[in-house]
């Protein structure tokens, strides 16, 4: 796996981050660093806060307390006269450009062709000329095996194909970090493989950092440098895939893996 020389400063840093939805505390003071180019898989039972972690980084949920830093800059806060004030949309947009996300339900734009899905943000957000953006989009779509589908509309594709378009749409923006939110959970079992292969391929070719929320343990083992096991809004255990999957320490992780393996 190619990797940037890890700089002193982590790419993403969660400092005592909590998130409450009404009375439900989903995250309880999370501390987590993601290094440049690092691939981190988040595993854990549902409700353990995995998805919330990446949705806060994508600026889709605001933390209740705590600070998330991207490249050393607070994401949800803005420094005003040495004090941290809530960030405004301009501030969020500045940092958001470094982050990309693939969703469980693909969320392609149904009124645009596949090509436009992958081109639109390049042109309007990054200001890339249309010709070049389309060239890049086609190259990317060929890479995910959909070079022949550029003129199709999302709903004409299978779930697996749609998810590969969604991956192309996010990766073509060249973020520093990609977030994958249970990207195979909505797929029929026979379509899971093609999507995971594409992610593995991209992981191999690029030096983007990745956070992968997943239930696919084999996939986590293949792609991740580190696996983080969450339970009840806190990190219960983390380590290399080998450590986590083959030599789990906490009884919760042990029983999680056992339950997991027995159901698959």
């Amino acid at each position, binding site marked *: 796996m190619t990797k940037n020389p890890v700089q002193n400063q982590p790419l993403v840093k969660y400092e005592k981050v909590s998130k409450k939805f009404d009375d439900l505390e989903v995250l309880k003071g999370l501390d987590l660093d993601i290094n440049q180019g690092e691939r981190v898989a988040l595993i854990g039972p549902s409700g353990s806060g995995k998805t919330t972690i990446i949705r806060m980084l*994508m*600026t*889709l949920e605001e933390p209740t307390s705590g600070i998330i830093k991207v490249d050393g800059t607070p994401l949800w806060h803005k420094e005003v006269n040495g004090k941290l004030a809530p960030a405004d*949309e301009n501030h969020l*947009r500045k940092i*958001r*450009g470094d*982050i*990309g*996300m693939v*969703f469980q*339900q693909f*969320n*392609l*734009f*149904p*009124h*645009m062709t596949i090509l436009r899905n992958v081109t*639109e*943000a390049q042109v*309007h*957000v990054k200001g890339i000329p249309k010709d070049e953006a389309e060239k890049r989009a086609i190259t990317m779509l060929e890479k995910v095996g959909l070079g022949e589908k550029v003129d*199709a*509309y999302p*709903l*004409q594709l299978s779930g697996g194909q749609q998810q590969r378009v969604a991956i192309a*749409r*996010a990766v073509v*923006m060249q973020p520093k970090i990609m977030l994958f939110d249970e990207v195979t959970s909505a797929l029929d079992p026979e379509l899971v493989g093609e999507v995971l292969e594409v992610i593995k391929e991209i992981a191999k070719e690029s030096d983007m950092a990745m956070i992968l929320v997943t239930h696919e343990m084999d996939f986590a083992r293949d792609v991740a440098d580190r696996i983080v096991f969450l339970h009840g809004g806190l990190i219960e255990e983390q380590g290399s895939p080998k450590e986590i999957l083959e030599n789990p320490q906490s009884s919760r992780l042990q029983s999680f893996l056992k339950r997991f393996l027995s159901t698959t």
Partner: protein
Amino acid sequence: MWDNINVYFDILHKLLPAGWMTIKILVTSALLTYLIAFIAGLGRVSQFSIIRTLTMIYVELFRGTSLLVQMFWIFFALPAFGVEFSAFWAGVLALSLNYGAYASEVVRGSILAIPKTQTEASIALNMTRWQRLKLVILPQAFRIMLPGLGNNSIELLKGTSLVSLITLGDLTYRGLIIQNTNLSYTVPVFILLLILYFIIALPLIILVRRLEASASKGVAKV
């Protein structure tokens, strides 16, 4: 009554210029109605609560009171406050403000009908608020609002007949005058009025169907 076809042609001849007036009122108020509908509809989903409140007050005020009374207000009462409109503009304004309030609900409803996940996907691509609206939300919402706005414009056409009550010489006004001058014309006048209104509505009906078809292109049948 059907024996004298010439009566029908005679009445039709007198009605046609008034039909032109009805079309002029319809087109002018339709343009203004949709302008208002979009502004108010977007206002209702604005991020600023003051804008949401102001547009809500407008919508509920104009939906909750009678169109005819609004028209009377603009034409007969506002001059008392020094604001005067010609009968044409008083009619157009009342129609547009009233139907615009209804149509803004169609605009608002179709914007809200777009799943939140579409906004999330466009945030993840770092689009600005305006880009999200322009590139992602509105094109999809537009498809949903077309049938509603189409119905709205047909309703608007029928609403134009109220301008006859503020002395504007539209189809209904002219028809009533013809009928008043010769009561034996009652049936032919009202038959012709029905037919003429329907003929004016027909292009609207066809246009809406066309727009629906072309706007639904993106949603392919699997």
